[in-house]
């Protein structure tokens, strides 16, 4: 008995000792480091502001304008995702940055976002974040939280060194609003893309149009589309008239074309947010428009006009069907699905796009425009960086015209040259520079040897878009069929198709809004639950497992349980962002 009691006492004592030891070691050092990081960042900021004001230019390690950025070479750590076997360290961009700017980028890359995100978390915990953090999958809310906790640099303190970025913010107030916190801090920025042209929806080959005796230009309404699909099936029972995928798989954008026709202006799969004329945030999923859309899709499903594997096939299986010619109407990046290389530019001779349609719910052909920026962070700077000024000046270059060309194409005379595109425009061209013995295409060479993925391609150039929009119809045909550089082919194809429509409306999709931590927490669970429910109901309505008419009210009731919690939060954030 004594022995048993001794054992028990010893066990208790050891447990208490271990608990005390961990409690003493763990939190305090982490908290201290966090506090140190925050105070260091704060003192860096005040030192910088003070130094630039009080000290002479000779005392600074950097130059306030021009190249090189730094007076003595420095090393900056950069991390991101390659998703390839690309070696950033040996790319033209990295070498040129060192040569021109005096900044040596020490690159560490990861194969996928899961690995990078895990590393990011461990680096934050151990205060070993690299100076430049790119391509991280972190929401804007979390980024702002990390910034407020002292992990990330407040870029707004260095705007006096960033004229290009400052100008960009003035010219793009929505972008500025999204990326700026309530207290005026900027902790990250994301990619900006030109959105003057919408993404067209479904593709169909010219050969199939001839075979089945129809033309896409004659399809103006959803009923026209239904009749064409029906006719295809009657002529060839083995054909799949329309193939789409749902919920995050490749091909889901094909649904946008049909949804737009019913007045549903969203580019999401579920939780279809929009804004009505009164500025109220609405959920299209519970509107009569969506009911009509689901009834239409159910009709296609019942009559075997819609691919019966739409809910279950993988992206590879989908592309395989397209390549094998089993499908008539489909959506994907055309040159991927059909295996045609861009250099051939033949794809747009072989295929047409199904244009925006109308229905009884929408009498104007409408395209939903993608948001000009993503709802996540792409580039961040560590608060612990020794060279915040140099890093910010480097990032500022990204927002200059020269910088956009540099990060996309490299250096003139070394990786590209300007050539006349045949239309009087001088455009970058790589024909005389890429290694044809080592790479099968220019694109591959560009991505293996010149650029560093899209780590720094924050602003996607829009010059080609402006040229396309200003071109005549004849010029557009030249771009499609005779463009030697393939610069304008895709955009010209879309623009020409749009011009064939008499009246076209471009409707902006719901722009991402920044949420505070509390708002994000309040939205997280109801959003997830509502999304799952919507996904489930959508599949059941389209496949006919549930009758839409009898189950619609019950469906709306269930969704409203969540939507009534979500709507006020999103409305608040939306009103704040649009003030």
């Amino acid at each position, binding site marked *: 008995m004594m022995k048993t009691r001794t*054992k028990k006492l*010893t*066990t208790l004592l*050891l447990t208490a000792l271990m608990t005390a030891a961990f409690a003493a070691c*763990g939190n305090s050092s*982490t908290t201290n480091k966090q506090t140190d990081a925050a105070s260091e960042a704060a003192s860096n900021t005040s030192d910088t502001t003070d130094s630039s004001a009080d000290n002479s230019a000779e005392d600074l390690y950097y130059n306030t304008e021009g190249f090189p950025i730094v007076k003595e070479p420095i090393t900056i750590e950069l991390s991101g*995702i390659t*998703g*390839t*076997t690309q070696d950033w360290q040996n790319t033209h961009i990295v070498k040129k940055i060192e040569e021109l700017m005096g900044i040596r980028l020490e690159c*560490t890359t990861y*194969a*996928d*976002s*899961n*690995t990078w995100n*895990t*590393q990011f*978390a*461990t680096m934050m*915990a*151990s205060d*070993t974040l690299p100076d430049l953090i790119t391509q991280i999958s972190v929401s804007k809310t979390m980024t702002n939280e990390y910034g407020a906790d002292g992990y990330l640099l407040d870029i707004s303190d260095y705007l006096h060194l960033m004229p290009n970025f400052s100008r960009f913010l003035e010219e793009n107030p929505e972008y500025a609003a999204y990326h700026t916190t309530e207290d005026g801090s900027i902790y990250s920025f994301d*990619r900006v*893309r030109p959105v003057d042209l919408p*993404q067209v929806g479904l593709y169909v080959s010219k050969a199939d149009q001839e075979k089945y005796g129809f033309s896409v230009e004659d399809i103006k309404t959803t009923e026209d589309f239904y009749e064409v699909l029906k006719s295809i099936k009657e002529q060839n029972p083995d054909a799949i008239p329309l193939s789409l995928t749902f919920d*995050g*798989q*490749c091909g*889901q954008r094909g649904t946008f074309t049909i949804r737009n026709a019913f007045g549903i202006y969203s580019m999401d799969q579920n939780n279809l947010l929009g804004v009505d004329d009164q500025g109220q945030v609405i959920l299209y999923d519970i509107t009569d428009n969506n009911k009509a859309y689901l009834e239409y899709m159910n009709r296609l499903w019942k009559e075997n006009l819609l691919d019966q594997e739409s809910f279950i096939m*993988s*992206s*590879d*299986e989908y*592309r*395989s*069907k397209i*390549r*094998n010619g089993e499908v008539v109407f489909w959506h994907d*990046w055309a*040159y*991927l699905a059909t295996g045609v*290389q*861009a250099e051939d530019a033949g794809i747009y001779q072989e295929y047409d796009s199904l244009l925006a349609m109308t229905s009884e719910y929408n009498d104007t052909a409408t395209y939903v425009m*993608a948001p000009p920026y*993503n709802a996540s962070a792409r580039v961040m700077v560590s608060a612990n960086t020794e060279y915040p000024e140099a890093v910010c000046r480097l990032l500022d270059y990204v927002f200059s015209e020269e910088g956009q060309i540099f990060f*996309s194409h490299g250096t003139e005379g070394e990786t590209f040259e300007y050539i006349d595109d045949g239309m009087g425009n001088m455009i970058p061209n790589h024909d005389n520079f890429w290694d044809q013995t080592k790479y*099968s*295409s*220019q*694109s*591959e060479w*560009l*991505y293996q040897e010149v650029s560093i993925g*899209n780590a720094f391609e924050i602003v*996607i150039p829009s010059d080609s878009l402006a040229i396309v929009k200003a071109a005549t119809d004849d010029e557009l045909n030249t771009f499609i069929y005779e463009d030697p550089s*393939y610069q304008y082919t*895709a955009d010209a194809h879309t623009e020409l198709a749009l011009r064939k429509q008499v009246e076209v409306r471009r409707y902006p999709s719901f722009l991402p809004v920044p949420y505070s931590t509390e708002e994000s927490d309040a939205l997280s669970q109801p959003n997830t639950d509502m999304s799952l429910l919507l996904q489930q109901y959508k599949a059941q309505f389209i496949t006919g497992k549930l009758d839409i008419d009898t189950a619609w009210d019950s469906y709306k009731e269930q969704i409203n349980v969540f939507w009534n919690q979500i709507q006020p939060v999103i409305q608040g954030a939306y009103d704040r962002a649009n003030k």
Partner: protein
Amino acid sequence: MKMTSKKKKSLLRYSLGDSVFLAIVYLLLLFSFLIILYPILYVISASFSDPNAVAGGEMILWPINPSLQAYEYILHYGDIWTGYANTIFYTVAGTLLNLLFTLPCAYMLSRRDVVGRGIIMTLFVITMYFGGGLIPTYLNLNELGMINTRWSLLLPGVVSAYNLIVARTFFVNTIPWELQEAAFLDGCSDFRMFTKIILPLSSPIIVVMTLYYGVGHWNAYFNAMIYIRDRELYPLQVFLREILTMGQFASDAMQNGGDLSPEEMLALAKQTETANMIKYAVIVVSTAPMLIVYPFLQKYFAKGVMIGSVKG
């Protein structure tokens, strides 16, 4: 004698029930065998097949458009061979370290004359159920200066509590205490006892431990993914995972293609194609050594796998 055994054999008759039972058992075994064999055959066939046919679900069992393209690509894919060399190093060095620490520890805990072995064993068992988690472990290794070094893959987990228990049970049940007592009486020291008496009698458990630890090292990728940043130190499984995620990264990026230019899309498409082409071949190449080595160790493994169980 032979006549007798022949007579004995001829006397053995299975009843109808026994025959039915045996037939069912053999059928179930055949079924299980086919279920286990099919994935292996599929992977081997896929490694020789057209990647588009495999990705499109057209290949069921036999290769379609067979070629050695994938293996040719792998031969020139330098990272694979770097990974191979590293994996072999980690497996050999890691297993040796594991045995170096596990076996003496297990022997010590099996000795009935060691004071406090119960408490020590309890502490080991606690670590089987509770751990610090990813971040504290990372911080720990960071403080010890092991991040981005080979030690981060060799030292953490150098003693597995489960294997320790198995080995300890073996020593308790298989090595008679009387033998050890007799050796002590003859003046044998503890180290001499372990090296000259215990180890020579422990070949089954050594083989079992070698296999368990060796396979663990061979398949390990998570620790390398977290603690290693230098590609020259990556084991093979990390490169294999990279190839698999490379294709997935490209697929996911193409699904969200609104963010990418045609050049990026094409580069990603090429990447997906390459990943699809080589991933099955890399699986074959990476599992081949274990498949080759195992038959030679099987008799020891069969003998030793139950050896750590508690005997009555």
